[in-house]
């Protein structure tokens, strides 16, 4: 699946929900299902500091594609992190660098991407792209 296809899949999924409660319940479920980051990667240097919720992110290059694993101490943030990982993981650095991630807006969760320092999500996305860029540069 391309990044856009996964984004569309998520949009379709969220369209099933009538209200915010179902949406958040789904997000919380996703959070629980996130492949937890290997605890050996849950270290200070993998930590993306938010003012409140913390995010850990680990990136690896496998066969030219990046595999992300991540975690957060807040479950809703973890749900959001799960969505990001699902969309971006297993893609080439170039694909990741070009991703717009408009789906967050479409499913009505844009507020989680506001730069209010309260969670590490915005910084995590930046970090995902920076890692992609680093892999790209290295492999060139």
């Amino acid at each position: 699946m391309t990044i856009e296809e996964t984004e569309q899949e998520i949009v379709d999924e969220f369209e099933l929900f009538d209200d915010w409660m179902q949406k958040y319940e789904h997000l919380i479920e996703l959070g629980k299902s996130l492949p937890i980051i290997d605890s050996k990667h849950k270290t200070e240097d993998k930590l993306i500091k938010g003012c409140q919720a913390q995010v850990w992110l680990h990136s690896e290059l496998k066969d030219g594609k990046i595999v992300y694993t991540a975690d957060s101490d807040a479950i809703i943030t973890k749900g959001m992190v799960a969505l990001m990982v699902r969309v971006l993981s297993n893609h080439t650095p170039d694909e990741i660098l070009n991703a717009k991630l408009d789906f967050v807006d479409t499913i009505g969760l844009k507020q989680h991407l506001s730069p209010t320092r309260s969670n590490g999500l915005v910084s995590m996305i930046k970090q995902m792209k920076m890692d992609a860029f680093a892999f790209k540069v290295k492999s060139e």
Partner: protein
Amino acid sequence: MNATKTIDTTGIDIEKIRADFPLLSRKVNGKPLVYFDNGATAQKPNRVIEALNHYYRFDNANIHRGVHTLSREITLAYENARNTVRKHLNAANPYEIVFTKGTTDSINLVASSFAKKYISRGDEVIVSVMEHHSNILPWQQVCEERGAILKAIPINEAGELVMEEYYRLLSPKTKIVAVAHVSNTLGTINPVKEIIAAAHAKNIPVLLDGAQAVPHIKVDVQELDCDFYCFSAHKVFGPTGVGILYGKEKWLNAMPPYQVGGGTIKTVSFEKTEYADLPLKFEAGTPDISGGIGLAAALDYVNEIGLDAITEYEHGLLQYATTEIKKLKDVKIIGTAKEKAGVLSFAVEGIHPFDIGTLLDQLGVAVRTGHHCTQPLVAFYCIPGTVRVSFAFYNTKEEINIFIEGLEKAIRMLK
């Protein structure tokens, strides 16, 4: 509105009061707003909004130096505002009231100026573990610069200062004690008279961070006998951008100026500058004139309602919320001091405060989550932060019910 009716005995006419605050009728996420983030900033009554409006429409001019009518009139109004603050704190003299940008600015001013004159290598400054960063970092900064040592009064599990430890920390090396009057995270009202008496017995001055006290309880700086008192207008129903430093004349006179520039001087030359008298010596540059006017309007409003009534009414809210929240499983109240004001912090076993805040927001309930700029305190409790509910006199038991229901729902979803 049954719940509300029962507390009307304090003399708080809640419906009339709520009508004074336009923002309270806002909807958020389709729900009526329940604003429980008063500790962060309070909403403003029409009186204050109108005062700002009027200032900019009819009175705006720069103060102090103008000979023209507008300038003269607004200078008087601004000095009257200063006097309103003086009366509110029962300071002895209007020139002991310095307009600043806020509590943080006030504390930075004192830390910087006081340290230049009085703090040297090896000296000590005492704060407490429960302080807001704004009452830690300025002291940490000057201590670092001067080779002095910052000591912190510890707290017990209830969130009260361990006074025996405080007495032990007081020493001939102590140059100043700086503590919160009321803790922003715990709501604890600290025994400041005792703290001050003990410090004064050793000739040590005391600064009180009153950011969370002034909105909730009567403050009398002469009765307290504190040497410095700081608060922010925006937390006491006034505008953003302005705050107060009260300082005893003898200290303010002895301390060197902090910021310097227009307004702070008698004469300037490249050889020699003579600084102005109090309070101008500490008020460099064009002040927040509308802010001063707005703060005075806010204090007038508060005094019309009456601080005794406010304290009693809020006490009722706090007790009610405490009782109700205790009924919920897995909720632990953070801060169970005997003396508390306006604030209820809690943690929920196994749930991150951020998640609770996010879901409550969906229900229109605005609370604060996180470390509340008190990281050392939160570290003491070994938690990632708290959910903080903070009240003002326009809140109601009905709102507390909405909050409690929402909290139950959130916990169910997150467990």
